[in-house]
């Protein structure tokens, strides 16, 4: 079971790595656009559009990543008073609901992405970026990853209901001390 959990989370972590790179790219891109325009009056439409195109992978690939690193905001007023098995049960409900929400949204958005693909939708501005379906495809992808993280969390919770001492801790290479 442990290896299944870790294999699922490896996927979340890897695509999270891509999102981390997008953040660095975003910082450098927006700063570059500002400086290029101020100093040289250069501002290609495609580079301006790329700014907000980068937010989509950051936000959507980051969903499951933040859940994996337990940065999902929850109110632990009662939770912290629960006995261990009840905590595990609460975690299981949370994980199963996550799977459901992720699956519904991923399914709902497939037709939406497909429509953009069939239209070959692009930017209405000349010089803008083409292939909007790629941008839109991050919606089902991000929520599918959420389903995967939800499955991993469900397995973890089931193990703890079975035996509260089990701890299928996520393989964290990075600290999680920074949480909003």
């Amino acid at each position, binding site marked *: 079971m442990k290896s299944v959990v870790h294999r699922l989370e490896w996927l979340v972590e890897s695509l999270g790595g891509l999102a*981390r790179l997008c953040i*660095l790219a975003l910082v*450098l891109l*927006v700063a570059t656009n*500002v400086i290029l325009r101020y100093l040289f009056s250069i501002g290609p439409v495609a580079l301006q559009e790329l700014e907000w195109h980068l937010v989509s992978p*950051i936000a959507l690939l980051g969903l499951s990543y933040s859940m994996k690193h337990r940065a999902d*905001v929850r109110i632990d007023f009662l939770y912290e008073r629960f006995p261990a098995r009840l905590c595990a049960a609460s975690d299981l409900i*949370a994980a199963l609901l996550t799977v459901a929400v992720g699956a519904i949204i991923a399914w*709902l*958005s497939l037709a939406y992405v497909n429509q953009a693909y069939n239209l070959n939708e692009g930017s209405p501005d000349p010089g803008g970026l083409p292939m909007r379906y790629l941008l839109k495809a991050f919606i089902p992808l991000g929520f599918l990853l959420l389903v995967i993280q939800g499955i991993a969390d469900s397995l973890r919770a089931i193990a703890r209901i079975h035996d509260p001492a089990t701890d299928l801790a996520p393989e964290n290479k990075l600290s999680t001390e920074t949480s909003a």
Partner: protein
Amino acid sequence: MIAHEWIVLGMIAGFLGLMLIGIPVAISLAVSGFVAGYLGFGTTLFSLMPARLYGVVTNYTLLAIPLFVFMGVMLEKSKVAENMLETIGKAMGGLNGGMGLAIILVGVLMGASTGIVGATVVTVGLLTLPALMRRGYSNSVSCGVICSSGTLGQIIPPSLVLILLSDIVGESVGALFAAAFIPGLVLALIYMAYLLVLGVIKPETVPAIPASERDDIDGTTLAKKLAADVFPPLMLVIAVLGSIVGGIAAPTEAASMGALGALIIALATRRLNWPLMKETLHGTLVITAMVFFILLCAQPFSLSFRGLGGEQMVHTLFEMLPGGEFGAILFLMALLFVLGFFLEWIEISYIALPMFLPVFMNYGTDMVWLAIMVAMNLQMSFLTPPFGWALFFLKGVAPPGITTKDIYLGAIPFVLLQALALVVLFQFPALVTWLPDTIGW
């Protein structure tokens, strides 16, 4: 068929219930929204969902979120904030309440360059709480100062709260930044005045640093150190606010100047390396995604709320209120304050606020002023026991001697001071509107 009004009430109750049993806020929102929408309309309502989600992740204004978070996390990880605090503290040492004033000043400085609560409270808490306790500050005063200083950055521009509010009320980010500037300083001054008064009437709660400790360092060295440690954060303030005023960047873009500035500071102080970068990107992604998680999952909730006529219910409620615009504002403030007990500011902004806006548009209320009143109120919610975020963060890093009761007791005077600030803004709206009007924003 169940009446739509009952489904709306059930949706809200379900949301609160799920949260109480420990389900993450975002998931609670989405689940209650989907269930209520399904009960009311079957699946028809949800075909609109993907377009709304796409709207959230491609919203130009929200571009500033990862940029500001990056700046804040980088400042924390590269220990810039830590050095600044230590030096200002020493400079203020001789005065009763001096360390407290130093903490407020650091909050203002950090607040003027970034706008995320967590980083500041955690950093300031880790660094100063043990020192304050050692120097004989009362536990509750220490906790109150740290939490309130750490949340100042939300009202002092630039700030995430203001960016989201500008999107909601449809005013420019620049106008809200300008409008929040004076109120933010007023609040910091009220805090400082309180500490000075405390230093006179209850000096034992806020003692000065003992002379022996201050003598370790002479005036010139201190002045040099002060210049060296306060310089980098000041540069960031100039980079962000200066690039807007100086015509280099539009308000949303200005966040990138801060992020770039934080990167350059880390480079200049030779702290930038790949592990630090990786940790910063990790921290930024986790916080940014957490914000977007809630924004995205709020979509099924707000769509169902709108579809089921929830807005109409709110309007009816407002129409029943006595006192016209004044009554409505009073009610809104009271409601936000109560919601702040158990809801996070992002949900309050994105779920509760849009319902009320049309009412105030009808009254012709100044939207910039209203947004600042709301921001000040949300700011208060960060500090309000039992669910204030700042209080949670501090508890997370507090040494064993500090109890939850210390933190709650410490926060209460500052919550009252914020309420005072709110009354001041209500009585003197010019404090909000003067700056944006003068510069024409």
